[in-house]
């Protein structure tokens, strides 16, 4: 199995992603860590609450990973995990990793996985601001009806 996907309410483990993606023939591993930042759309941010549909999320993650492997080579190794619940500034919300024999495929595979996750995975975030306000962040529609 060269794909690992998951969701958790526990802190994410970048070392586990790198270990999973290690292979003797792979000279390149690309690691992406998405973290909560302290400022968005002109407002200071205290933290973010992530909501996700766990079952569908795992299915979509696997679908995205299989598409990525089909695009960049059957020996590509991929890791994608996303956290849910309340996170403080600086905490990791998502970790993606891709390994392959050469760097170009690893870079591109990792980027594809992250970009597709942002557009297609059933995940939502509510930002909490220093003034006490909270807002659900606008995102990408999954539907195509008129």
């Amino acid at each position, binding site marked *: 199995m060269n794909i690992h996907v998951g969701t958790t309410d526990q802190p994410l483990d970048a070392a586990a992603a790198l270990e999973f993606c290690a292979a003797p023939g792979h000279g390149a591993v690309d690691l992406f860590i998405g973290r909560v930042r302290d400022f968005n759309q002109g407002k200071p941010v205290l933290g973010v609450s*992530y909501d996700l*549909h766990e079952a569908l999320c795992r299915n979509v993650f696997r679908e995205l990973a299989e598409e990525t492997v089909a695009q960049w080579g059957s020996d590509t190794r991929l890791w994608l995990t996303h956290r849910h619940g309340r996170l403080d500034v600086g905490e990791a919300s*998502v970790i993606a990793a891709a390994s392959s024999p050469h760097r170009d495929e690893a870079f591109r595979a990792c980027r594809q996985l992250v970009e597709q996750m*942002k*557009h297609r995975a*059933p*995940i939502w975030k509510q930002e909490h601001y220093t003034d006490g306000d909270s807002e*659900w962040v606008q995102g990408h*529609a*999954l539907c195509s009806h008129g």
Partner: protein
Amino acid sequence: MNNAATPAREVRINLFGGFRQFHDQPAISIEIERSATVATLRGRIAELFEDDANARALLKASAFATDRRVLGEDEGIPADEELALLPPVCGG
């Protein structure tokens, strides 16, 4: 007596993301005809939010899904499966 309407059944729709601010429960249940499509269900939910333009706008931009996949607008409502109402997504 001949009743042309198909029998109704109850469908549970789990709410996520921004919908949590428009409803005080994590899900809504709606009785709907067995022959209903996703589009029909969308219309029925819009009736629940008739006094809330923000909720209706979010509904218009949202998709319906099972645990396995996003449903098309003209599809029938799958039997014996809970549904989810998915607002626009923004992971990461």
